[in-house]
């Protein structure tokens, strides 16, 4: 089950990058560089996860499952957040909102360049943070997809030349 091993690995890497991007924000714009490095590593991870399972059956599933595992805290916090928009029941949800934002620290540098209007009592940047985990999964999926397409092209070329 490579996705479990990769999921835990990506989870730990995400926690590290929360700290790294936060620390790097002291030396702005080093935080943008840290986020760029993180996105590059995610892209590479998607490719490596898929490459590991390529011989068995080319699938994007492992990369997606690893991403889901790695982003499970973010997804749970986003769910708690979205629920609290409808039924705010006090300080626990407030703590969840802080945790939710801290979890998305690796994506914050991009948001800090803009001003966001408040809509429905919440800033648009806060709504946008809910897209953090889905975008993370999309990046892994695209990387896995590219790896599969590249391998299929290579197989086709070998098959074409051998005939």
């Amino acid at each position, binding site marked *: 089950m490579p996705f479990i091993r990769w999921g835990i*690995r990506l989870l730990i890497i995400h926690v590290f990058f929360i700290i790294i991007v936060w620390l790097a924000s002291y030396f702005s714009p080093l935080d943008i560089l840290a986020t760029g490095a993180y996105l590059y590593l995610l892209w590479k991870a998607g490719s490596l996860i898929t490459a590991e399972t390529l011989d068995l059956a080319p699938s994007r599933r492992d990369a997606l499952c690893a991403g889901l595992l790695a982003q499970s805290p973010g997804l749970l916090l986003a769910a708690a957040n979205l629920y609290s928009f409808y039924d705010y029941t006090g300080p626990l949800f407030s703590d969840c909102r802080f945790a939710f934002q801290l979890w998305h620290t690796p994506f914050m540098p991009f948001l800090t360049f803009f001003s966001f209007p408040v809509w429905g*009592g919440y800033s648009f940047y806060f709504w946008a943070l809910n897209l953090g985990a889905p975008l993370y999964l999309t990046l892994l999926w695209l990387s896995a997809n590219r790896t599969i397409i590249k391998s299929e092209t290579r197989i086709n070329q070998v098959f074409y030349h051998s005939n």
Partner: protein
Amino acid sequence: MFKAENFFRHYFLILSSVCLILTIAILVAAPRLPGSAAQSLAATFTQGLLQGHAPTGIYTGRVNRLDFKHLQPGDILLGGKPKAAYGHFTHAGLYLGQGWVLEGYVDCGLSRQDVAHYHFYDWACILRVKLSPEEREKVLQYAQQQEFKPFYPAAFKTGERYWNCTKLIWAAYRQVGIDLDAASDLWVSPDALYFSPYIEIITTEGEMPSCLSSAGEYVY
């Protein structure tokens, strides 16, 4: 040549090293650190968490009777509640006038809020910095330019991209050459504003601290 495979094999060591290097770089680059390490916000926060105090500062809803009639644009409002991890006061806002306060919240970013919500803290106070009308205008103008920017709870004092409620006030007053951070820390806490030598306490409601936090302990 960088190989991603090698990174993922040794990621723990590499990323721990990066964290350590950045921490050391910050300590070296910081112009001044608190006179006493125990007074730093990091020490207060850690100690507070270990004591089981709340990491956030949302008000409890108990009503205080803070008198808003003394408020003038440019005044600072502080609110607090018992057992908050990062100090006696947990929130700060800059009064803009006409019942509006500019402040930072995790879900609203830097935005205008009704001053009335300062009645819902267990304790609250109004602080004033002596300024000329031109200086006051400059402070307010700078603060309002930051409206609608995102909020980040652990924002360092450096830079103008990451904001929290106290950094907004500290940075606005820096425009007129006033450093309100009594602790000279890497972050600004609401308590540091309260103990700044530049401020005059206009009115208070509820318990007030008599000295800056020493790792979570207050003298009343």
